[in-house]
């Protein structure tokens, strides 16, 4: 095949791609800022001994884990404004969707970490007179968080990959910018290849870190058995 690659055209628009990357990171970080605390809250509610709390929260978590994020995004972008009468722009719809969607997954990471801590730790804390809240904050979470780090980073990777969906509601993330440049320059091969490499450049180091941490934790015998 006599196709002549020309990355020069793409490099001229590289600042546009970089702007897209910044927007991708913005959505990812905001979703993390909301999603992680929300996930911790959901995990604690799911571990509650009261079935009236545990069951509905469990259903919500499973619902967001078992439906495609693009369906969730379209629901929040197209259906929610009609239901509530509140205008919602692509940026807000995206942050809202990915905060909730990722919180469902973070909830499971937190839950896995918390239940992986032996019962004896709870009992010992109780024996010295700690309340459930204190036990969780001072004894369980500090130990559990360490074991959760690989699963947590894995979810960060998935989250950043999932944010590409914002392009479908016209938010100018990396994929959206790449698509625009591809159309204006007629160079989709170069543009999409470079966009893919830009994602790779960020995600691959995180992946490597996950692997290294997993190996380290496996050696010290600390896993969440996931």
């Amino acid at each position, binding site marked *: 095949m006599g196709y002549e690659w020309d990355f020069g055209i793409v490099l001229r628009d590289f600042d546009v791609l970089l702007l897209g990357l910044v927007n991708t990171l913005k959505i990812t970080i905001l979703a993390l800022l909301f999603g992680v605390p929300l996930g911790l809250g959901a995990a604690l509610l799911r571990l509650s001994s009261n079935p009236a709390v545990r069951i509905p929260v469990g259903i919500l978590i*499973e619902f967001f884990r078992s*439906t495609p994020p693009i369906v969730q995004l*379209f629901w929040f972008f197209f259906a929610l404004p009609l239901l509530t009468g509140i205008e919602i722009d692509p940026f807000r719809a995206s942050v809202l969707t990915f905060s909730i969607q990722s919180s469902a997954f973070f909830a499971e990471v937190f839950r896995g970490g918390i239940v992986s801590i032996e019962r004896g730790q709870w009992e010992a804390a109780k024996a010295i007179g700690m309340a459930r809240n204190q036990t969780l904050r001072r004894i369980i979470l500090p130990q559990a968080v360490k074991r959760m780090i690989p699963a947590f980073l894995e979810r960060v990777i998935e989250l950043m990959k999932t944010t*590409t969906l914002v392009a479908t509601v016209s938010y100018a993330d990396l*994929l959206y910018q790449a698509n625009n440049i591809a159309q204006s320059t007629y160079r989709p091969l170069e543009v*999409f290849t470079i966009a893919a490499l830009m994602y790779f450049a960020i995600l691959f180091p995180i992946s490597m870190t996950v692997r290294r941490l997993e190996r380290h934790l496996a050696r010290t015998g600390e896993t969440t058995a996931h």
Partner: protein
Amino acid sequence: MEHTWDFSSILASRDLLLVGLGNTIRLGVLCLVVGLTAGLFVGAARYSRNRLINWPATAFIEVFRNTPALVQIMWFFFAFPIISPFQIDAFTAATLGLSLNTTAFCAEVYRGGIQSIHKGQWEAAKAIGMSYSQQMRRIILPQAIARMIPAFMNRAVELMKMTSLASVIAFGELMHQAKAISTYNFNPIETYTVVALIFFIMIYPMAMVVQRVELHLRRSDQ
């Protein structure tokens, strides 16, 4: 604002949704079969000691695991046709993207499963005179596959969710049909709610089974 839910237009469009559901399942099953099969070979290559085999397999796996599936699908739909010797329609592009993505993840599952088998099993098989491929086929894989089942089922769950990405390149799966129905009937609330429920009903039982199997394996390991 008060919204009166009205599902009649969805019921009227049920044929469109059924076609979409059929396409979703067709795409998902095809990519799963390709991914499970090709993943075994890529996983074995990744496990090889020969660098010429090991290195390309590793590069393939890392690229497909560390780039977004939507970028892969769009690459195969918009970019690949320029250098491809054959025509690429939306179904082919989605199949290529999702199959290769699933192959990369399955390869890692195979590798992890094989590595989890105790070294003594290899040595014992070798001691009674089995060749490498006999050791792998008769001793290692049968034990390893049982441990891999939950991970494969997880991949199937992720894959079914990812098929919805094919709507972006206008392949007529469930999500694409939903877009068409909601635009035509101005009923995004009902359409996207119903489609979310259809996906949930399809995927949640799979996720439940994964949890059961994981629990069972953990117990039988102890």
